[in-house]
C-alpha cells in the first residue's frame, strides 16, 4: 500500500514554477515537494490545477521555473515521464464507436504494452472497476458513471507509477461518486501513487492523505491532510471563572470567544488542548468538556482564501 512516503523520493518537485497564457497567469512562482501517496490537488475552477497536470505530462512548457516528475524533467524527457504516468482527463475522452474492452486494450498498447498482454490487462482492469459484464458494449451506450470508470480503467491499465485524475467524480450522482472515491482509495493499496485534482473538497477529504491547495495560480497550502484537520477550533465548557481561563489562553496568543460558561478556542493545532487544561488548572476551574470542532477542508480553504 502506498502511504505518505516522506522518506521515499518525492513524486513531484516543483521549483518557482510560473506558467502564463499570455495575459493570464495560470501558475505563479509555485514551489512544492510532494511525497508518495494519494495527493489532493485542490482549488476553485481556474486555480491552475489542470495547468499543473499538463505541465507534469510535458504537454505545456513552463514560462519559468522547473519541475521533476518521478525524478524526470517532463520538458526534457516527456516520453519517459508519460510512459510512467496514467492520466484520466476531466472532459470526454472516449470514442463512442468502440467497445470498452477494445478501447482499454488500445490504451494499454498506446503505453507500450504488447497487444496480447494488453487484451488480458484490459479485461482485468475492467473487472476491477466493475465493468466486467459490460466490457463488450459500445462506449456510446454507457452511462456517465460507466464512462468515468472506463476513463479510470484506461488510466491504470498499463500499471503506471503515478496516476493523474482530473476531477474524477465530475458529473456523477451521489452513489456513483462514492463508488468512484472508493475505487481511488483502493488504488493506493496497489502501490500506485495518485494525484487527484478536484474542486470538491469533500472528495479530497475522503480519499487523500496529502493536500496541495491552489488559488488563482498561487500556493495556499501544501501538507498532510491530518495537519489541516488539526487546525480547527476547540469547544470548551468550564464550571466557573470562564474569563480567567480565557485570559490565560489569550496570554499564549490563541484566540478565544467566550459565551457564558462556554468558549471557542482557536483555530490552532493539537497544542490547544494541553493549553486549555493548563489554563483551567491555573484558574482553579473545573473542565466540563473539551471537543475539537470538525471543521472541514472547505471551511479552511474558504478561510484562507478570504485571508489572502
Amino acid at each position, binding site marked *: 500500500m502506498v502511504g505518505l512516503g516522506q522518506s521515499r523520493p518525492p513524486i513531484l518537485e516543483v521549483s518557482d514554477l510560473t506558467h502564463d497564457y499570455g495575459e493570464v497567469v495560470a501558475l505563479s512562482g509555485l514551489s512544492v515537494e510532494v511525497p508518495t501517496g494519494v495527493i489532493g490537488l485542490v482549488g476553485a475552477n481556474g486555480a491552475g490545477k489542470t495547468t499543473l497536470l499538463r505541465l507534469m505530462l510535458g504537454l505545456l512548457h513552463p514560462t519559468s521555473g522547473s519541475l521533476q516528475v518521478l525524478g524526470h524533467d517532463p520538458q526534457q524527457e516527456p516520453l519517459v515521464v508519460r510512459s510512467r504516468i496514467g492520466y484520466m482527463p476531466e472532459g470526454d*475522452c472516449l470514442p*463512442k464507436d468502440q467497445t470498452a474492452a477494445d478501447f482499454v486494450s488500445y490504451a494499454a498498447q*498506446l503505453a*507500450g504494452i504488447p497487444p496480447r498482454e494488453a487484451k488480458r490487462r484490459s479485461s482485468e482492469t475492467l473487472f476491477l472497476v466493475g465493468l466486467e459484464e459490460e466490457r463488450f458494449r459500445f462506449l456510446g451506450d454507457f452511462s456517465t458513471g460507466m464512462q468515468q470508470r472506463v476513463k479510470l480503467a484506461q488510466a491504470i491499465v498499463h500499471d503506471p507509477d503515478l496516476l493523474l485524475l482530473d476531477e474524477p467524480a465530475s458529473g456523477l450522482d451521489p452513489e456513483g461518486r462514492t463508488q468512484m472515491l472508493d475505487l481511488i482509495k483502493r488504488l493506493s493499496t*496497489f502501490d500506485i501513487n495518485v494525484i487527484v485534482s478536484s474542486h470538491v473538497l469533500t472528495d479530497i477529504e475522503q480519499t487523500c492523505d496529502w493536500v496541495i491547495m491552489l488559488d488563482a495560480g498561487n500556493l495556499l497550502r501544501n501538507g498532510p491532510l491530518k495537519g489541516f484537520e488539526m487546525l480547527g477550533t476547540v469547544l470548551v465548557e468550564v464550571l466557573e471563572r470562564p474569563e480567567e481561563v480565557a485570559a490565560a489562553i489569550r496570554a499564549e496568543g490563541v484566540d478565544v470567544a467566550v459565551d457564558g460558561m462556554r468558549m471557542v478556542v482557536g483555530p490552532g493545532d493539537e497544542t490547544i488542548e494541553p493549553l486549555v487544561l493548563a489554563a483551567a488548572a491555573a484558574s482553579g476551574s473545573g473542565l466540563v468538556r473539551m471537543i475539537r470542532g470538525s471543521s472541514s477542508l472547505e471551511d479552511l480553504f474558504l478561510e484562507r482564501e478570504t485571508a489572502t
Partner: protein
Amino acid sequence: MTDQVLYDRGYRTYDGPRLGTAGARKAVYKDGVRRVLGLGRKARQKIFPWSLIVIAIIAAAVFIGIHWAIGNIEESLRQQIPTYGGLFDFYSGISLLFIALAGPQLLIPDRTKGVLSVYFSRPLTVDGYLVSKVGAFATVVGAIYIVPQIVLHLGLALIAEEGFLTYLGDNLDILWKVPVTTMAFIAVHGAVVFALSAVIDRTGIAAAAFLGILFAGAAVAGRVAEAGFAGSRYFALLAVDHHPRIVRDHFFGDTVAYAPEQAGFEVWVSVVAIVALAVASALFVRYRYRRLA
C-alpha cells in the same frame, strides 16, 4: 447456502516488456486501419467501406472477363479495352468515395471526442500520431488501388497468348508504374482530406468539402485558366485532382487533356504540384495538432 466464493482478482502489476514509442505508433496505425475498415465497430460502419472494396475486386474480375471474352472473338479488339491506366480512372472514383469517408474518420473523432488527451498522455508524439494515421490511410487506400491492379495483372497474364510468364516478363514496368501512380493519387487526395479533417468538426461536412474541392475546384480552376487574362493559366494548377491523372497518363498513355496540360504545363510541373501540396498539407496539419496537443 452455497459454497461459491467470489474472488477479487485485485490489480496485477506489470513487469513485462514495454514497447515504448514504437509500440504506441504501431497501435495507432493498427487502430487506424481497423477504423477505416469498420473493424471492431458497429455493423453499419462496415457496410460502406466493405461494399466499395467488394465492388473494386469484382470490377477487376469483370475487366479480366471482358478481356478474355473479347480476345476469344477478335484478339486485336483487346487493344481497345482499358487496362491498367483505365482501371486507375475507375478506381480513383471508388477511392474518392472511400477517402471521403475514411479520411475524416481517421482524424475528426479523435479530436472532437477528446481522445487526443489520452493519446498525448502516452509516450507518443504529435509527429508519431500523424505519421501512423497517414500510414493507415495509405495502406488501405493503396490496397484499393493496387490489389485490383494485381488481380488484373495476373488475370491478363493468365489469358495472354504469349503465356503467363512471358507476359509477366514483358510487363515488368507495371510493377513500379502502378505503385508510383498510386502514390500520386494518395498524396493529392490524402493531402486534401487530412487538411480538411484537421479543421472541420463534422465528418459529413469534411467529406462533402473534400469532394467539392476535387470536383468543383477542378472545374472552376479550368474555367478561370481559360479566361485569358494575364497569368490566368496558373489557375489551372489549382485543379489538384488533375495532377495525379496527368502522372497516370504519362505512364499509361494519354486519355484526355487535363486543365494543367491545356494551360501548357509539362508533367514535371504536376509532379512538383503534387509534392508541394503534400508538404504544405503535412506542415499545416502538424502545426494544427501541435497546438491541440
